[in-house]
């Protein structure tokens, strides 16, 4: 018992002896010069995606998009006389693996730039490695606002979650004229939570009413309990900001239970798998997305044709944005005086009116791309019909 007073004293000391930390602590020394690839004759581009797990199509599409951009750049003579090379790691959808892979890319492979992740959780994990090491990172499709807040080396070429929620709320209210909407969100994904929050706020602000909020877990395949509960609330529409892997099944079961109101969602729906899983039940539902492959603009059609030739399918938004992210990175490499992290970062930050396939990209001072979103309607022949564009 003699130790007790001592412990108490120490605790008191701790409690009273605390002060606010002054400013930010001294910046850690930047890691080994990150820009120069070991071989010297090539520039390494690091990629981290989830290539296994339930949302693997996201990772694979993204990888394809980057691969295409890199091939095109190499065909055009590379950058500063050097060839580009990619180094891809699979994080299995887990943040700690993403951090692990990022550490490897930064410290072992010494990549010039990191491109990656779809899921925001994983992007945040990577960004926390890239930022202190002063290696620029561009995420093609992580829409959570927190990602780029991590530091001035972290960029994105897509819009952010609040914007998607906002777009769908406006669309539901202004275009579909819905009054009562139910929400079915995925508990396991931060993405779904983010979209739900903004959608709910905006939709209520505009005079609509959220009549039911139900949840599910990524990987579930039975949603009848939730849908039955939603049916009781008798909504005009259901907001399902989830991933295609569940949305397809949800659409089927909603139809089965006699729910005929439109479903609405976000860019997580964008995959060929949606049609396979949902069959005819997904037809006529709406989701917000980054671009439409129906866009007649020549640079879109050129990309779509080239992608189709290489991978045998229409590029989804993931592939397109990854292509754009790689494009922004390569463009910045060309403009930067050298390939050190600092110069490259500055060059990326100055990106202005870059003609991306999924819209013109200008990075704002919070390193986010300011872009409009499109609303697509799921069509009959496994295609998406362009409905409208909503600007920020």
């Amino acid at each position: 018992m003699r130790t007790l007073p001592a412990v108490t004293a120490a605790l008191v000391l701790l409690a009273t002896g605390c002060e606010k930390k002054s400013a930010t602590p001294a910046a850690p020394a930047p890691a080994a010069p990150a820009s120069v690839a070991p071989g010297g004759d090539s520039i390494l581009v690091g990629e981290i995606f989830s290539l296994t797990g339930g949302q693997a199509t996201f990772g694979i599409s993204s990888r394809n998009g980057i691969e295409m951009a890199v091939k095109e750049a190499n065909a055009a003579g590379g950058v500063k006389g050097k060839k580009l090379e990619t180094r891809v790691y699979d994080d299995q959808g887990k943040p700690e693996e993403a951090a692990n892979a990022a550490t490897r890319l930064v410290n072992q492979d010494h990549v010039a730039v990191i491109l990656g992740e779809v899921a925001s959780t994983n992007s945040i994990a990577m960004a926390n490695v890239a930022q202190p090491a002063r290696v620029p990172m561009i995420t093609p499709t992580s829409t959570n606002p927190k990602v780029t807040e991590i530091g001035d080396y972290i960029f994105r070429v897509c819009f952010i979650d609040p914007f998607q929620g906002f777009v769908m709320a406006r669309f539901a209210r202004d275009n579909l004229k819905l009054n009562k909407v139910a929400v079915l969100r995925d508990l396991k994904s931060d993405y779904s939570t983010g979209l739900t929050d903004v959608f709910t706020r905006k939709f209520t602000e505009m005079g609509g009413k959220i009549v039911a909020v139900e949840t599910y877990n990524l990987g579930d395949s039975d949603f009848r309990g939730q849908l039955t509960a939603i049916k009781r609330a008798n909504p005009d529409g259901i907001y399902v900001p989830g991933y295609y892997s569940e949305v397809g099944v949800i659409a089927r079961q909603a139809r089965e239970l006699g729910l005929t109101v439109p479903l609405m969602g976000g860019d997580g729906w964008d995959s060929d798998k949606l049609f396979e899983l949902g069959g005819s039940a997904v037809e006529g539902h709406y989701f917000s997305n980054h671009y439409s492959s129906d866009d007649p603009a020549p640079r879109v059609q050129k990309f779509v044709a080239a992608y189709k030739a290489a991978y045998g399918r229409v590029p989804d938004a993931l592939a397109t944005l990854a292509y754009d992210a790689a494009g922004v990175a390569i463009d910045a490499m060309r403009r930067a005086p050298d390939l050190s992290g600092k110069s490259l970062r500055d060059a990326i930050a100055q990106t202005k009116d870059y003609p991306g396939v999924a819209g013109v990209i200008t990075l704002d001072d919070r390193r986010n791309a300011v872009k409009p979103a499109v609303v697509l309607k799921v069509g009959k022949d496994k295609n998406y019909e362009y409905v409208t564009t909503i600007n920020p």
Partner: protein
Amino acid sequence: MASLPAPLRGVFPVLLALLLLGALQVVVGQLPFFVYLSSVVGVNVILAVSLNIVNGMTGQFSIGHAGFMAVGAYVGGKLALEMKDLAISGIPHGVSDQLQLLASLAVGGAAAGVAGFLVGLPSLRLRGDYLAIVTLGFGEMIRVIVSNLEVFGRALGLSGIPQTSSFMMIWMCVFVVVLVARRIQDSAHGRSLLAIREDEVAAEAMGVDTTAYKVRAFVISSFFAGVAGALFAHFVPIINPGSFTFVKSIEVVTMVVAGGLGSISGSIVAAVVLTLLPEVLRSLFLQVGGLEGGAALAQKVDQIRMPVYGILLVILMLSRPQGVFGSRELWDAFPRWWGRGRRAEE
């Protein structure tokens, strides 16, 4: 070391390790990837050694260790986040950071220990495979509860936890855990645990309060799992519920089983090997396989890890169910060298 005066024996190894690791810290501090990797290895070693206290020494089969790791990671991480902008006055910030890290480790561990107590009290009445399933259920429940709490960031988890862990800190924790596990094993308490493993009825008849001992073993094991979790939170930039599924529990079980149930050194070796194996394979593929094929194979390494763990478990059980080390210890091989090996002392 045998000639060391008794009062010093308790602390001497710790001081020695402190010096040694301090020196190493200076050397490896500049190798970030090495530090990162060794941190992952260290955390896995702590998890394996602590699980071994329950699964190996006490013979109770728990497969829900990740749940306790989650408690430690979240509670420790949350505390660190709260203290992020504070520093203790009068000492350099670096020292203050380390003290805060220690505090969050202690609190994270304690929280996990409490969780272990709450879980252990009812479930340790069950035996064998039933206990295994119930621990699995509890592990999952802990994760579900944590992921439903707003303070823990729900699905997104916690990010921005100060990354203050260092090579020295992590390996100091590893050292302490191993030391404690060894000392427990060599003490009257450890012998009681082993007795429970060997024959619960006989142990009870010999005056061992088996329930209390099992719960205590469970609490200590959970405490260290919590410490491992809190350490984890201090070098992985974001923790979220997905990191603590029962897949993680099975990973740790694989390490303990592969090393040999009841062998501390076996757990250590298995944890190190199994954690580094994917890394080694990856570099190997990258080096040897040429650019195209090698890189493709290197990508697959992560995919094949889980099925390989599965196959490993099956093969081990069929060919060497007692694990690579059985219940023997590495240090039994060099009793003199280690000063006071278990058998040398007797």
